[in-house]
């Protein structure tokens, strides 16, 4: 596979993942703030912005007040805003264009359909009156893409590069949710249930741990569960498998970086979620995950940088 294509597929996986995740976070936050007072509701939105590290960008564009309308404008429709659903979908689309001949045609079709949907006036028009309809429509569009990945792609290198991007994106998102939950909720059960819900993990958690579990149980589940698709360790292991399948042993640096952060997560003692130590541990994990992505990009373009290849005489 061309290095440029591998790069595009990796980012396609990341952006598709990001669009799904941000949309789900919005959906959950929207529902959570409905039952609360205006002030508490604003807190919910503020936490969401913190998960995405978007507090400053938001206040710069929309001022201090927080509302569903503003949040949707900012995080769903604003294609110029990195991290928004529309931005992620647009980036996904650019990457599909660049790897168009390496993916099934249905991939382009499904990403384009979502892109068209987000750009349509019709969707923005219902944004204020029925936000859940937007989240549903976007979720359906994302599932169509996921279906193409699942059913339409051969399990070859292209698939692995895409999945590598998707799993790393998930691992990072789960870490961010854990970090923010710990800092705002400490051991408040409602916050942690919200965290589970925003990562589609509520149901599976309740089935294994029941509703009386502690904040620490949830944090442990989000980090270490073997069965939860958004579990950090689960994502990192899956990423490692995909990475191993596209490279010969010892050729690249990124598998080592990935192995390091995976074992860090696997063998860590989870500190109390309300301790300062917890925050610093999560920080380390996040840095480790980002290092994997950077090393991977370096690996991709290592070929062609060998000096022998640039010493050829220019005819």
């Amino acid at each position, binding site marked *: 596979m061309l290095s440029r294509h591998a790069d595009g597929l990796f980012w396609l996986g990341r952006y598709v993942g990001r669009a799904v995740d941000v949309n789900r976070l919005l959906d959950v936050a929207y529902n959570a703030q409905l039952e609360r007072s205006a002030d508490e509701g604003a807190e919910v939105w503020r936490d969401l912005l913190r998960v995405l590290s978007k507090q400053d960008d938001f206040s710069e564009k929309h001022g201090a007040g927080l509302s569903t309308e503003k949040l949707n404008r900012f995080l769903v429709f604003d294609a110029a805003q990195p991290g928004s659903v529309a931005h992620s979908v647009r980036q996904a689309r650019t990457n599909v264009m660049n790897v168009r001949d390496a993916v099934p045609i249905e991939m*382009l079709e499904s990403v384009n359909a979502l892109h068209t949907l987000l750009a349509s006036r019709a969707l923005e028009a219902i944004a204020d009156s029925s936000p859940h309809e937007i989240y549903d429509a976007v979720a359906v569009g994302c599932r169509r893409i996921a279906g193409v990945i699942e059913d339409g792609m051969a399990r070859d290198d292209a698939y692995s590069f895409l999945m590598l991007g998707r799993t790393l994106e998930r691992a990072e998102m789960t870490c961010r949710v854990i970090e923010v939950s710990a800092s705002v909720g400490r051991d408040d059960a409602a916050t942690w249930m919200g965290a589970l819900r925003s990562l589609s993990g509520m149901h599976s958690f309740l089935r294994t741990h029941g509703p009386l579990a502690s904040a620490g149980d949830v944090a442990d589940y989000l980090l270490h569960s073997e069965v939860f698709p958004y579990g950090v360790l689960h994502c990192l292991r899956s990423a490692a498998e995909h990475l191993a399948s596209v490279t010969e042993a010892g050729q690249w640096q990124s598998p080592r970086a990935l192995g390091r952060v995976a074992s860090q997560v696997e063998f860590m003692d989870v500190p109390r979620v309300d301790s300062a130590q917890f925050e610093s541990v999560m920080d380390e994990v996040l840095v480790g995950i980002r290092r994997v992505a950077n090393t991977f990009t370096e690996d991709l373009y290592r070929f062609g940088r060998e000096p022998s290849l640039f010493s050829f005489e220019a005819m």
Partner: protein
Amino acid sequence: MGILDDYRPGPGFCEVFADDGARRHYQPLLDRLRELTPGDMEDRARLTDATLRNLGITFAVYGGDEGIERTWPIDLLPRIIPSPEWGMVEAGLIQRTKGLNTFLEDIYVGERAAIRDGIIPEWVVLSSDGFKRAAVGVEVTEQARCVVAGIDLVRDDFGVYRVLEDNLRVPSGVSYVVENRAAMRRAFPRLFEKYTVRPVDDYGSMLLAALRHQAPTHVADPTVVVLTPGVYNSAYFEHTFLARRMGVELVEGGDLVVNDHQVFMRTTRGFERVDVIYRRIDDEFIDPVVFNRTSVVGVPGLLGAIRAGNVAVANAIGNGVADDKAVYPYVPDLIKYYTGEDPILPNATTYVLWDDEQRSMVLDRIDELVVKPVAEAGGYGIVIGRSASAKELAQARKDIEANPRNYIAQEVVELSTHPTYVGGEIAARHIDLRPFVVTGETIKVVPGGLTRVALQEGSLIVNSSQGGGSKDTWVVEDVGGG
């Protein structure tokens, strides 16, 4: 009802109606149209547009304010060519391509016999922008310097197919031939029941076979790639289409590297040798070491690899000499010279102004002819006699007399017209035809080709970048009944 009741054929040859009624091969289409309401047509047009947009079948428009992409415009009424008529056109295209390839071979690796024998003046060949010294002596397999040709045809007032232009460098449009057909199958499935239409779907295998045939002889299982300038090129959709249909990689200049006169692509598992490059980049940009130094889309050192015989590039470098406007008037004579046959497809009647006799005739009749400068491209500097002012004509006369070698003149060709769905109704619009000719072990022609439509009433400009549309083009077996 009847959405065709008010139809009035335009000026020029009408593809659908003869003086005594509809041509027989159009009858089933007309019958089907009579069953449709304007609303049906509109629904189908909208559906087709949405499908094409989601499939990313778009082209880039430079400098437009709508962003850079526009959906490929396809008209819902197919152009239909009966099989025997097509047989004649096909034979003419094969003959012309063979002749042009022989000419290119004669110029670049032969003894330039056509010049020696006085068929074409040496200065016409050597002064052409398309003539590339760097290509002299570069061998190709079986004279296929032009593996893919797009030869633009128009039909004159009598319905005679004439060649307006040869495109022997990087002709585009073939992907739209295939996608138009797919779109028509979705929009009018029942119409296909009434016709036997020759399929166009196997272009990928046709092209791949021809490209593999070009591989250096020592390579048993050649690696073929398509080279694109990138996602912002107006024909990027086509480049991805070709790579996908052939099952090969679509590379950009930066993906390739030349080492020791061998071409490699950078893959995630290291360097992989490349044997055949179907390039969709112009000569000038293909190798910054030899041609345009500022090119960032090319591959440094590529020409060295070609000359060393380690990689084949299709179409070959330097083909522009054979589709040059100044060479065009000589093409019928060249065909006769190389093949020994009379050309089947005539040119548009053309006069060369460096010939004294032809010049004096042109100067007499300048108000009814079209004068074209040979060096300019894109319609720049063309003087259309019947619509030019007296002052413009006087200037043209002066220019011709000062520099006769810079001009050719042509009789006006009125393009044929075809019913076309525009603005909710069916009206006559001018069309041309670009068939695609692929030279491999044998020469093959894609049945039909790309019919381009001038969507403005009375306009003769069919380019998609300037508001032109397209039609699916059907070559049909004999239609029974009447």
